[in-house]
């Protein structure tokens, strides 16, 4: 990158007379660092199988995949529904955790709620990918359930459901089950489709001073 920007003569001059300066070292570092970052970013866009297994380790998102709604655009909404049980008896109907909120007039400037929706989207996509991988590896149902129930996206959804039911539902329920459902747009006549149904989990416990206690 240095050569096209400066020309060969200037580049040689620059190389010879600035070897010891901090500015020179910084220029070299910046060129190598940003050059490498851009190069890897380009390779990353191809989503090669060999690289995809490292995707989970990019917690910071330094390597973005810029496909934005493509090739498969997000044409459905994900919903979390849950029901409660007391001992062996189911005590409530399926209820929805209301995450999707319709756009307001100021959302083009200020839109904090988008992150919760995006999180549900990310978690559901991760769960679907994990389930597909388990099927591909011909895992038993027991192992598949084990894998799903202990992964971070699953626990995040369970936490969301648990917190919501703790606030708004029967406080005496001892167990909770949730399901992820996919619906197909505001004008669609297609019925919503269940994606995943969890086993029953112990609910969040109300402690003596009405605080929230964790169960997992």
């Amino acid at each position, binding site marked *: *990158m*240095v050569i096209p*920007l400066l020309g060969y003569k200037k580049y040689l001059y*620059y190389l010879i007379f600035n070897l010891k300066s901090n*500015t*020179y070292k*910084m*220029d070299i570092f*910046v060129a190598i*660092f*940003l050059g490498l970052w*851009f190069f890897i*970013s380009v390779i990353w*866009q191809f989503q090669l199988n060999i690289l995809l297994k490292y995707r*989970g*380790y990019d*917690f*910071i*998102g330094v390597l*973005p995949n*810029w*496909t*934005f*709604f*493509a*090739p*498969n*655009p*997000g*044409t459905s*909404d994900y919903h979390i529904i849950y029901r409660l049980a007391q001992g062996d008896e189911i005590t409530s109907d399926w209820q929805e955790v209301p995450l*999707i909120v319709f*756009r307001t007039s100021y*959302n*083009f*400037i*200020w*839109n*904090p709620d*988008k*992150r*919760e929706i*995006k*999180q549900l989207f*990310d*978690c559901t996509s991760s769960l679907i990918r994990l389930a597909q991988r388990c099927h591909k590896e011909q895992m038993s149902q027991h192992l598949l359930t084990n894998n799903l129930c202990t992964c*971070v*996206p699953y*626990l*995040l959804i369970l*936490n*969301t459901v648990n*917190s919501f039911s*703790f606030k708004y539902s029967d406080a005496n329920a001892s167990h909770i089950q949730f399901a992820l459902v996919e619906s197909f*747009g*505001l*004008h669609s006549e297609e019925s919503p489709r269940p994606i995943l149904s969890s086993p029953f989990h112990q609910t*969040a416990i109300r402690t003596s001073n009405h605080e*929230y206690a*964790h169960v997992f």
Partner: protein
Amino acid sequence: MNTPTYFRIVIILFTIGQLITTTELLFLYNKGNFSDRGAFPWRIISLDINTWLNNKYAAKILDYLLNKYLLYILILELILLTLLPFITIHTWTFTFVALILVVCLLLIQLRTTYGGEGSDQMALILVVAIFLGLNKYSSQLSEKYCLYFIAFQSCLAYETAGVAKIISKKWRSGEAVYQIFSTGSFGSLGFSSLLKRSGYLSLFLCWNVIIMEITFPLCLVVPLPFSYIILFWGVTFHLFNAVFMGLNSFFWLFTATYPAILFVISNLNIYP
């Protein structure tokens, strides 16, 4: 215009976008979303990170920074963002402020592993380029590298998105825009009703996006009036996305890359 002037405009647009993002995160913090019973509980999100780190001291430091003192990190970022456009570049103060901002953004990216979006990643690219290009030791050459880097990352983003769309049948047939706008997550009831009535409008919008994204990198090499048209097309596209899809941060953080693109155009000077 000289290199620092282009960088100044990048900084202003980046600051506006990032101020909005940070205040949104503070709002979510205030709502309890980052607490144990919120949507982004650190005790769960940290599981994968801690397994990967496999170091209890690092885990403890991250717990302090991203759980106990997250509020302070967000407030610190807000203050530094407010100061950034007013600090003289290539000084120790600028270097220090920009470096702390890089660290803050990295930490917040780590905290929002789930629920983060493309604009956050562009923000990280911008802040690293601002730090590397305008610190105490960087020369005019480093400034150029950084502006080139921002411009190329931006072009890569549009090109990838465009290619991914043109290989999709749903995008080519015009279904995609209508279906996306029909969702509650990204859609708009009024606009999706309009699209339902007019299939041609949906087809037009799909191809409009595909052509805009695929041709975007050409803005670096075509004659200047055409470059302006492509960039104006991009601004309109992001404004539309902000208004109808609620993608507000994308508008600021992607248009923040445009001054860098303008710099590259003038630097390449293919059509003098």
